[in-house]
């Protein structure tokens, strides 16, 4: 109450909500009957309710819906895997997987004739946002430095809270998909199969070459003497779904026809070499395995290098490694279909 003459807005609002005791309510009502300013205040209060009710009801923007589908897709994968380990806990996959026979890895269809494993449902309705779509580019929280530059997210540390839920669309940070020229053709003749991109119900993102061409200086791929594989850079944001394969359209999409000599980070080359040796060992080979494709890209919104190695050509199976800038696995190495 303001002085003896008027009641303040809070009292009037409480009156309207029926919160005042009877005696007070009667007194305020009597006052309202004779006091224009207080009547005006009461009308203001009613107008507030009207204005709030009149606010337009927004629909969830598509970009947000996609993000959520993506996050739930990752969640579903974790659940499928037993729920014991979460990506944001950045387990040492090399240690965990080190002694495992490959066959104990999550089983995936190995042959071209095997029906595709149903993909994670939550993510399914959402077409993979590709960099060329006008989708809002969402940068994961915690990867933006104070000066506005994008800092490669570090697993374990950066943005731990959100790492399970990286936004679908990635920033335009350069990423590289490393494609192997001719590998897919070889594979096709080996399996006697043919490429039928239309078979996929997934909305495929534009092939890396078209993406890369828009990024100009980065160039889509490069080979240098002494390196037998192509390192490409795509802006493509890989999801776990995509990494189940078929991968030929992604990791293998960049051919040697793409010219330009982008500077390939030597640390990436060293990492590929390291992983190649590891894969070679796992295949009980004397020599390092040769990657089919290497792609500097994104994995769930984080900068990543995706590598594919043949596990079994005839069975259309490849090993997929996804590593961060420190060459640490961002997810367990897994088997995927190539075609």
């Amino acid at each position, binding site marked *: 109450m303001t002085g003896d003459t008027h009641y303040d807005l809070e009292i009037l609002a409480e009156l309207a909500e029926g919160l005042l005791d009877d005696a007070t309510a009667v007194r305020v009502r009597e006052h309202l009957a004779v006091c224009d300013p207080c009547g005006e205040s009461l009308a203001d209060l009613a*107008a507030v309710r009207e204005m709030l*009710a009149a606010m*337009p009801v927004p629909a969830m*923007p598509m970009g947000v819906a996609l993000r959520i589908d993506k996050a739930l897709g990752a969640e579903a994968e974790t659940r499928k895997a037993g729920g014991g380990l979460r990506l944001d806990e950045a387990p040492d996959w090399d240690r965990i997987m080190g002694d495992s026979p490959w066959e104990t890895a999550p089983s995936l269809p190995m042959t071209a*004739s095997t029906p595709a494993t149903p993909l994670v449902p939550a993510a399914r309705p959402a077409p993979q946002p590709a960099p060329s779509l006008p989708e809002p580019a*969402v940068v994961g929280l915690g990867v933006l430095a104070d000066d506005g530059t994008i800092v490669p997210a570090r697993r374990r540390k950066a943005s731990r809270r959100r790492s399970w839920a990286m936004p679908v669309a990635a920033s335009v940070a350069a990423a590289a998909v490393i494609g192997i020229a001719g590998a897919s053709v070889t594979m096709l003749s080996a399996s006697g199969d043919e490429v039928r991109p239309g078979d996929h119900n997934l909305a495929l993102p534009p092939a890396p070459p078209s993406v890369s061409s828009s990024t100009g200086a980065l160039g889509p791929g490069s080979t240098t003497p002494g390196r037998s594989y192509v390192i490409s850079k795509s802006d493509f944001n890989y999801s776990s779904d995509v990494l189940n394969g078929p991968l030929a359209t992604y990791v293998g999409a960049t051919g040697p026809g793409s010219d330009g000599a982008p500077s390939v980070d030597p640390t990436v080359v060293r990492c590929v070499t390291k992983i190649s040796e590891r894969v070679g060992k796992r295949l009980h080979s004397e020599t390092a395995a040769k990657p089919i494709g290497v792609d500097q890209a994104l994995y769930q919104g984080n900068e990543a290098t995706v590598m594919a190695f043949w596990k079994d050509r005839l069975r259309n199976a490849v090993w997929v490694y996804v590593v961060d800038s420190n060459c640490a696995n961002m997810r367990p190495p897994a088997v995927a279909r190539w075609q």
Partner: protein
Amino acid sequence: MNFPPDSPPAAQHAARSASSDADLLTSHIGGDPHAFSEIVRRHRDRMWAVALRTLGDPDEAADAVQDAFVSAYRKAESFRGEAAVTTWLHRIVVNACLDRMRRKSIRPVADDELVEAAERDTPMPDQTGERDVSMEVTAALKLLPADQRAALVLVDMMGYSVEDAAQVLQVPTGTIKSRCARGRAKLAPILSHLRNRSDLSRVSSAKGAELRDG
């Protein structure tokens, strides 16, 4: 190679559409990989509206709703059925928002593109006057304490009953009424100049009824 249809058979899908939220949640707990998606599809717009209005920022709201849905996905077993699934979902979303408001100081980045996208996707009334009203209301709401804002969003903006809001926020109905009253009292002087700018009584009663009935 012959890929099976990526989506479940139509009949199955139809059955899912007819299921209640509680049935879907039960299916989800039982391992149905599609059930939770259907729940999300049904309620995401409403959850978005609650979060956007509570937080007043599309970027924050997106994070909050995402946190909330993932949390609901994980905690589905904790749903005991004493409340409606929607109430439970609202509670998780509102709590995610309140949680976010409490630690707002650590928010590192605003995403302009997301903001723009949200604005683009938000149906704007064709009268520019109303757009101003909408922006001023959003700005004014941000001045309120979190608990009052949350109550006003649910009751006045979303049109839920005081009882429903009390269930969502897990406080007595009297507390909801009191928070609404105090919140409106704070907003009234800020928004009073808007009162005569547009024919609010006409516009809002229709819309308000629509909100409440919807």
